[in-house]
């Protein structure tokens, strides 16, 4: 017996049973809602200098090491102090209007890194009236280059081959916590 045109159309269209899928999603959503982090908190490492003895011992070991200090002031801006082979020189980055010049600081940090590729540590000496958000912003500018910027190149100690990295001065330490 031939099937009518109408019955063939009924066979072709069917309703997908979405109830089990809905059950799964309803079970997953509360679980995800409990473990979701709407605000993502990360941390910035800021090791405080250890006891004076340790600091002195480390300084003795690295007599020829270039030391870079960064002073932050709300009145005068940034000042890099580079100590190399017993000589020191300053690089000043003036305020941009009334604010700290973060772009200028970043550009100068990258310049210093090109000059001293083996130095990874900067001692940060903020003035007492500098708020935390400006200290963190300063650390961000000194620590890394952005994803669109040219990467920093330095020679690997073991292989001697050039290595590309986005880290400029990743080791930012508060230098004046001990009262310096």
């Amino acid at each position: 017996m031939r099937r009518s045109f109408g019955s063939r159309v009924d066979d072709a269209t069917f309703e997908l049973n979405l109830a089990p899928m809905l059950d799964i999603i309803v079970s997953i959503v509360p679980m995800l809602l409990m473990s979701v982090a709407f605000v993502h908190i990360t941390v910035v490492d800021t090791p405080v200098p250890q006891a004076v003895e340790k600091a002195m011992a480390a300084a003795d070991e690295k007599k020829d090491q270039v030391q870079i200090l960064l002073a932050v002031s709300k009145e005068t801006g940034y000042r890099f102090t580079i100590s190399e082979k017993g000589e020191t020189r300053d690089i000043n980055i003036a305020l941009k209007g009334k604010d700290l010049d973060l772009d200028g600081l970043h550009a100068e940090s990258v310049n210093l890194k090109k000059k001293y590729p083996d130095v990874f540590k900067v001692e940060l000496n903020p003035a007492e009236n500098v708020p935390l958000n400006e200290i963190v912003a300063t650390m961000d500018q000194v620590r890394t280059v952005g994803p669109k910027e040219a990467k920093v190149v330095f020679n690997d100690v073991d292989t001697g081959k050039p290595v590309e990295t986005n880290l400029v001065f990743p080791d930012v330490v508060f230098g004046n916590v001990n009262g310096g």
Partner: protein
Amino acid sequence: MARRGFKKYMDKRSPATFKIQVTSMVDMFVILLVFLLKSYSTSPVQLTPSDKMTLPASTSTKDPVDVLKLMVSKDAIYVEDKKVMDLKGGIVDMKDVDANDTQFLRTLYTELDQQAGKSRTIASKNEEVEFDGKVILQADRSLPYELLKKVMYTSMMAGYSDVKIAVLSKD
């Protein structure tokens, strides 16, 4: 007559069972699921920012670790959610400061020293646990370095010399 009319009406009416259209609901749930999966945190340690403070923002992507939590708001200093010192708009009361060393916060030191003592005791009895002097500092973004310096100096004196500043991720 009227009874027959009612029966006819009941027969003509659609059946008592009907299907709910769940397609749009499934669409909605799928969108919600994708959003939640995207913001799902895989970090083992979750830091919840306090409503008493606004954390600074940073490009740092380093996940927090499970260490002692030190919170500094404009009104108080907390160690592991326990209030240890009162502040007045981010300024330390002179009674909490050591007379011989203005950077040293005596009350905070006492609490941190106790915490360090506990951690050292656990570390001495359990080889898998090590006291490494790490502390996560959650501080309000507007607080001056003057106060943070005192907090860091005191924590360093108590044995917590590796300070990690909690920040809001910009990414």
